[in-house]
């Protein structure tokens, strides 16, 4: 078994109207590795993460996740890969028509878990992010930071093999941010492969095993 779980081989992503987000990037990430992705606004961080989850498709080069070359994988199989990834979206993508509990259970519904297991798992995930007292609250009644933590709970509830977090601490004060990073560290210890983007490197220094720096779609130093 290949020790590398994510491989980028000379990947470029050009959005419509010739907007080059990523240019000729190659990288590989081992199973269980913890990698940070840093870079200015518009550097291409989110694009890299979306390519891994198969949400965007590379224009050139190949993206291989868990042995699958994504651009050659059928859409239905790509959604299957997503089921094994936890994704914390930069714009949250919270569903405002249902309460915190029902937001967090969504990945488990997709995987077809039983009601019993769902209750236990959701409770555990909410506890990890410190939202256990908001279980039955509607998302619009949460503060910005609480919403962010809700997204984290949804991404980890099905205990994915790969956890991708796009600026997971952007809306959090230092204490809460450190708490979340601590949580991620535990995941890392449990063998989860992790990719975390951040525009603010200062908070990473204690944790960074490996930092990839992007600048205008290319690797930097």
């Amino acid at each position: 078994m290949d020790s590398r779980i994510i491989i980028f081989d000379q990947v470029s992503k050009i959005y419509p109207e010739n907007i080059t987000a990523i240019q000729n990037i190659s990288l590989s990430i081992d199973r269980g590795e913890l990698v940070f992705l840093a870079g200015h606004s518009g550097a291409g961080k989110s694009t890299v993460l979306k390519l891994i989850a198969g949400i965007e498709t590379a224009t050139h080069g190949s993206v291989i996740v868990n042995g699958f070359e994504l651009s050659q994988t059928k859409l239905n199989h790509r959604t299957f890969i997503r089921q094994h990834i936890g994704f914390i979206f930069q714009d949250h993508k919270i569903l405002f028509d249902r309460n915190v509990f029902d937001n967090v259970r969504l990945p488990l519904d997709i995987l077809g878990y039983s009601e019993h297991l769902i209750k236990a798992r959701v409770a555990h995930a909410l506890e990890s992010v410190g939202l256990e007292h908001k279980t039955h609250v509607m998302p619009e009644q949460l503060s910005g930071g609480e919403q962010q933590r809700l997204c984290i709970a949804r991404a980890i509830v099905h205990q994915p093999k790969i956890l991708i977090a796009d600026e997971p601490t952007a809306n959090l004060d230092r204490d809460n941010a450190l708490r979340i990073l601590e949580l991620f560290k535990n995941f890392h210890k449990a063998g989860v492969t992790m990719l975390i983007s951040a525009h603010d490197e200062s908070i990473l220094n204690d944790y960074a095993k490996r930092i990839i720096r992007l600048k205008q779609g290319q690797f930097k130093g």
Partner: protein
Amino acid sequence: MKLINAHYRSIITSITRILNKPFEHMLNILVISIIIAILSSIFVITKSSRIWETSNINYPQIMIYLSQNAKQSDVSKLEVSISKFNQKLIRNYQFISKQQGLQELQQDQQLQMISSDVITESSNPLPDVLIVNTNTANPKLLSQLIERIGNMNMVDNVQMDTNYANKINDLINFIKYIATFLQIVFVIVFILVVYNMIRLQMLLRQDEIIVSRLIGASDSFIMRPLAYYAILQVTLASLLAYFLVNWFINFMNGLFSNLKYLFGNSFLLTNLTSLQLGQMLVILIIFTIFSVFLAVQWVFKHAHA
């Protein structure tokens, strides 16, 4: 096991959705049920009128006047040749002798004044008559029939109210025309309304669909609750429509029983049989699932994820 669980959850979800916003969904159900009710009413009316059509004397009668010197044996021969005609052309016939004809004539109020003194049993100027009830309103077939009868032995004169025949034929065609026309219109309306309902449902749940896709939901995971939702709506609407039609039928039958004498026999609307109801429901549901499929594909294309 997982799949059954998933289906079970989808059903529960769609029921909860309807129960959560009963007013909105009731509106949809009401509109759909009215359309279904109109469709089935048209169906019921055409079906009932077809029954009425065949069981009532509404096709033209042909009057065969025999010549004055026709004997009993001639009449029998004639009856045999007529009974050989196709069932589709001739339902039955009735022989009215001179004597019977005279009696009937004497009962007619207006004629009584003039006939009572003049015509008596001994000087009866009436011919024997054979009345043939036809089974068609097609003018062409009828005139062929008349020609063939006219050429028969001992037949003096054949008369038919061709005008009446044309009227009946036109009226039947006219009703069929309108029924078909209305049925097509309302099938189109039904298609548009259901398709639109599901498309709007999906637009309203677009966030949910997009997010679900992004975290790995398959097409069927997304389609399932929508399909159940639509099926539930259409089923409820069909049931409501069934009661509406039932009420409509009772209402109309009440009216018709007052109008009994306007129609040869009492015209009665009969409701859909449970088989027909079941068939209708199955057809509607097949169509509904197809609509859901189309609508889902449409949203997937536009959410391209």
